């Protein structure tokens, strides 16, 4: 048990990523405001970046920009950073599209609250069944 905790504490960036991920999921699950759900998704994406870039780290490593004057330097893994650059572009695309859809929903229903929208939809359906 003690060894387990010491390993968890030594891997503290992963714990930090887990905490951010949990905050993101909590935001998505408990808030019915659609903008807050988008913010939660973005927090979760940020936790993924932290996890990947921490996995590529080396103790005493420097940023992977070649220094010709000092051949003995240790560089961190450049691949996770490049992959996360791709991930940021995808996350921006997802955020832009979901914000546009929320704007559309607001114009249609007059609210950005998911529960309100569900209520309006069920009322519309009940009225349609009565006719």
């Amino acid at each position: 048990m003690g060894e387990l905790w010491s390993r968890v504490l030594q891997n503290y960036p992963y714990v930090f990523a887990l905490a951010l991920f949990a905050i993101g999921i909590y935001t998505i699950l408990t808030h019915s405001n659609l903008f807050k759900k988008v913010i939660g998704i973005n927090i979760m994406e940020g936790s993924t970046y932290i996890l990947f870039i921490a996995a590529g780290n080396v103790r005493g490593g420097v940023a992977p920009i070649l220094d010709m004057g000092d051949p003995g330097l240790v560089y961190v893994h450049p691949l996770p950073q490049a992959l996360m650059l791709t991930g940021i572009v995808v996350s921006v695309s997802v955020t832009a599209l979901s914000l546009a859809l929320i704007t559309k929903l607001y114009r249609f229903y007059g609210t950005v609250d998911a529960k309100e929208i569900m209520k309006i939809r069920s009322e519309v359906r009940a009225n349609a069944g009565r006719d």
Partner: protein
Amino acid sequence: MSNKIAIALLVCIGVVVLLAISELPLYGSPDTPAQNYVAERYIEGALSDTGALNMVAAIVIDYRAYDTLIETTVLFTAIIAVFLVLKKGTDRKGEHK
């Protein structure tokens, strides 16, 4: 009430992931599986292969150039979708002004 359910769910997930974190290779140690010949190859070959001092730029623009090219397609698709969604005059179903 749903607040408590969410917290209970997250605690369950958190315990399992913490156990997984304890099994991960130690943070920053140079002999993790992530620090294999791939990193070595990129760090040693980036300058002679691509002529770029910045290895991240070398990977994004040279080694994985097709990835970046298709990525711009993703961005383009997202922008087109945003413009389609936000197009004026389609606020009501089947009613085009």
